[in-house]
């Protein structure tokens, strides 16, 4: 009886140690998923996540046989009193051709603020075939009060773009850069959305 009890309590202790180790492992795994998710998305181009570093133009023969429709969508954000517009909503390019399109940022408030345009590409299978040579989305932007700024996006579609893709949509969503916006909200409460 006593021997059985010791065997049993040793067994219980072993089970508890193992389950607690599994628990700690799973908690760490949840946090490890955050960088793993980013790596997975940027390797596969899933989720429309774009590499935010400039790429060099690759000089390759332009594929005159195909036209790809590239659409641009710009979205503002609560908390940033900016307007973002694009010179054309839609353009047609050949794979391999380098194209340029102007984006205009307008600060509607009277104070300086910082913002960032976060890019996304749809369909996500096109992501890895899109080379951005120059993009405002590579870094944060600063606008003085009432300033208007025009920045070009220069991009190229790779020739190996999958056959079934005829339309690519580039979406840019503006976000305030937080630490600086907070300072502004002290001076200019009216123009700042209530989400901060």
């Amino acid at each position, binding site marked *: *009886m*006593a021997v059985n009890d010791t065997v*049993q309590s040793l*067994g*219980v202790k072993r*089970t*508890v140690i193992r*389950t*607690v180790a*599994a*628990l*700690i492992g*799973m*908690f760490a*795994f*949840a*946090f490890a*998923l*955050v960088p793993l*998710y*980013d790596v997975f*998305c940027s390797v596969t181009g*899933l*989720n*429309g*996540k774009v590499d935010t570093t400039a790429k060099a133009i690759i000089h390759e023969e332009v594929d005159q046989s195909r036209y790809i429709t590239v659409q641009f969508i710009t979205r503002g*954000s609560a908390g940033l009193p900016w307007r973002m517009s694009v010179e054309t909503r839609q353009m047609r390019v050949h794979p391999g051709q380098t194209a340029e399109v102007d984006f205009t940022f307008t600060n509607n408030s009277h104070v300086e603020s910082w913002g*960032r345009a*976060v890019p996304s590409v*749809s*369909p*996500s*299978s096109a992501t890895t075939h899109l080379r951005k040579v120059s993009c405002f989305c590579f870094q944060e932007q600063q606008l003085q009060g009432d300033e208007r700024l025009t920045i070009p996006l220069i991009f190229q579609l790779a020739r190996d773009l999958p056959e079934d893709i005829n339309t690519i949509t580039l979406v840019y*969503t503006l*976000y*305030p*850069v*937080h*630490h600086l916006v907070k300072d502004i909200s002290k001076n200019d409460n009216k123009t700042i959305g209530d*989400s901060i």
Partner: protein
Amino acid sequence: MAPKLPPQHSLQHSSTAAAGGHSHHDHAAQPKGILRWVLTTNHKEIGSLYLIFSLTMFFVGGIFALVVRAELFQPGLQLIEPEFFNQMTTMHGLIMVFAAVMPAFTGLANWMIPLQIGAPDMALPRLNNFSFWLLPVAFTLLLSTLLMPGGGPNFGWTFYAPLSTTYAPASTTFFILALHIAGISSILGAINIIATILNMRAPGMRMMDMPLFVWTWLITAFLLIAVMPVLAGVITMMLMDINFGTSFFDAAGGGDPVLFQHLFWFFGHPEVYIMILPAFGIVSAIIPTFARKPLFGYASMVYATAAIALLSFLVWAHHMFIVGLPLTAELFFMYSTMLIAVPTGVKVFNWVTTLFRGSISFEPPMLFALAFVVLFTIGGFSGLMLAIAPADFQYHDTYFVVAHFHYVLVPGAIFAIMAGVYYWLPKWTGYYPNERLAQCHFWCSIVGVNLTFFPMHFAGLAGMPRRIPDYALQFADFNMLSSIGAFFFGASQLMFVLVVVMCVRGGKKAPAKAWEGAEDLEWSVPSPAPLHTFETPPVFNRTHHHD
């Protein structure tokens, strides 16, 4: 008021306990009154506490649901503000999932697992006490957020970021803390259950001799160990996004709201199986008893349960078909989800085959178990419809989804819990539940449940979105039916309370083996089960078992 359950028969049996050489149960020092319940380490008393807590929360969550249904009785806004409506839908979901269904299963596990494997108590009795008393703390905190400035959680029980971070009420930090405490409670309960099942079975009882309720709970406990830390991780990330300026789920800082959904459903899908696997175990105990036949396909039941648990880790993104997944992912998650229908089909087949040519009688536990099989299967079929990715674009976030998960949770999980309560009440109290009243409870429940949730299928297919306080006029009839059904169902649950209270107080005396066809070890101890059982391990007799 200290509940009377279970009666203290410890003194009569303490002599046999002493003969077994145990000294850790010191009866003379046992506290009286309320302290007895606060300090108890007895698995039966803790099991009762869990069940009473769960029943209380079932009514709290039920009242929240009735507030929602009252507002939806007619189109237009009449009773409550939309902000409060959102808090009610959210709190209804949170309370029902984390405070009603999960503690009810843990309560049944506490009561029945030691009795079914011939163990004197749970492996870690003090931890058991702690994991129960965390629950009232967690849910008092959660409910108190309703009274805070800005109100309680209003972002749905799935608390998608950034709705639950950037746009959430100020009380969200308390919501996170409450969920952390409830999560710790579940985790500690799971550790205890695993340690008990793996180490404390009666001599001679192999793993494949264990009753299915024990098996399904063992697998559920492993699921809890695997996914509750992920939930803890997600809400910790939310906490940091809200309070410490990180950007896990904030696109402005390089985070991603879709990541929240991946992490949440990586927890959330196994979580829905946590709420159904023990129900499978209960039904697998009841159907053979009242069909007076051994369970058909015991081993395949065990393997099917394990298969469902493993598959539950590979299907999470079927909740996210419309976030813009690539085609490959849509296909993968569609097929893996449909694959779950195979082991679930094995289970339903086994239950039906157990019934085939059985000598069936229709006592209340059996009625609830049979209703479970039929109505859970309906919920399973609507789940299959939702699993079809292209069709889900139409169904997503409509009342069709609401109908689906209420069919698997109400006549699924909750009917199984009620079946289990009716089945084991004679063992707990020594008396049979009042047959006529229990039958009446069953028939009212089954009418109420179908009247409430069946019309939701049609409202959803016609395009009515979830989580809205007002709706277009063409949905008015379906919603009125649902609301009538909901109030009828809610009122019939008062009969359940009445049956339980009457059964604790008295009734027809039950023998040790309360049901003619019942075979598991718990029926070898007297009814009501004395406070201490199996102090000397029972001799496990394999002849009436599954091989």
